[in-house]
């Protein structure tokens, strides 16, 4: 344990982390110290993507980020994907397309797909599949998730998805 503290900027706000053990992952600190349980703990070795968060401009597995090393970076979790009380287009599309079952993989996928669509509003099927290949889903077989991505992509392009 250490009595030092450090500050993490999560969803635009600074949070102090006090009395933390040095080895704590960003995932753990987000979930257990800062009250952001949206990122999920399914493998804690970077093999499932459930803990995906955005750090600055990249999507990473927060379980593989040492929390104390993520200072001075913009960390965005599922809780910061849309303004409080609103849903983003990908979130809306997930509900509409039936992409949510148990929901455990959902936050990681949403953060990943939101970022994908920011870079590419017209991704083809294979591009989407590769982009989400690090996000395991055990319930859906991915079919409705892929559908949701295309619904959200169409809405970002200003079209109606058929």
């Amino acid at each position, binding site marked *: 344990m250490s009595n030092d503290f*450090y500050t993490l900027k999560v969803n635009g706000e600074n949070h102090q982390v006090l009395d933390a053990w*040095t080895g704590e992952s960003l995932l753990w600190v987000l979930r257990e110290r800062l009250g952001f349980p949206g990122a999920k703990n399914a493998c*804690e070795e*970077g093999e499932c993507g459930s803990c995906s968060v955005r750090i600055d401009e990249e*999507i990473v597995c927060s379980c*593989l*980020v040492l929390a104390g090393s993520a200072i001075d970076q913009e960390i965005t979790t599922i809780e910061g994907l849309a303004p409080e009380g609103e849903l983003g287009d990908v979130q809306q599309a997930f509900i509409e397309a039936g992409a949510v079952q148990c929901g455990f993989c959902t936050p990681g996928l949403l953060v990943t797909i939101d970022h994908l669509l920011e870079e590419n509003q017209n991704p083809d099927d294979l591009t989407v599949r590769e982009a989400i290949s690090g*996000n395991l889903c055990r319930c859906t077989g991915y079919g409705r998730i892929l559908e949701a991505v295309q619904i959200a992509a169409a809405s970002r392009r200003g079209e109606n998805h058929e």
Partner: protein
Amino acid sequence: MPVTVARSLDDALSALEEHPNALILAGGTDVMVEVNKGTRPVEQVISIGRVPELQDWEHEGDWLHLGAAVTYTELMGEELSSLVPALAQAARTVGSPQIRNAGTIGGNLGTSSPAGDTLPALFALNAILTIRSKTTVKEVPIDEFITGVKSNSLNPGELIEKIRVPVLEGPQEFCKIGPRNAMVISVASFTLLTDHQEKQVKSCLGTVGPVPIRPTEAEDFISGEVNWEQNTVRPEVLDNFAALCSSAARPIDDHRGSAAYRRHAIRVLSRRAASRVFSEEIS
């Protein structure tokens, strides 16, 4: 502070001088797995992932200088994939997009796993590592750096600063076998580079020995048999090349694959890789 987030190479080296046995963290994608499991003690940590000198790369004449903190995603980018295609192809097979965004080429070297995906390409390229401490700097060829399964010649107080590889003229191939179509640890991999200037084929076998293996006999054989003007080979040369590559493998049995399969896979991959690069002469 137990965690130093270095913002310059000097920062990192000073911290390392003070704590020579500190845990060096680049992308964290290997180290944090052990930290989460509780198998890696964490006292002092030096994070080097955000050191600008280490994040940069530079193409200078016939050489490419890659900072140790260049990520796999960057290796897959347009510019680097045209300069070192095999390295880019290898990088694309590392873990998931999330892992590739965080994981670094220096980290792959530091972990020195027999299954490290970029290592065979670096071996085939005869990569030279720049190893630096606060007070020393030296260049170490990759085959002297990696000394065994998950072991290397890095000393306390040192870090990998950059990796220098030649930019070759000629096509390159990397193929890797895993039981899943993405996010999978290598069962066997094969890298093939052509150097049209030197009229040489360079290759390397991955995950079929404690360290990546250069099948030198196979390389010498095929280099001498290629019609470099036409970029062709006779089919039996491909067969012999594949057999020589396969016999250079020193695989083990483990839960990911048997030694016999791995040896077989090297034969198939080496032949396929060579036939992508050279057309078969019609006899």
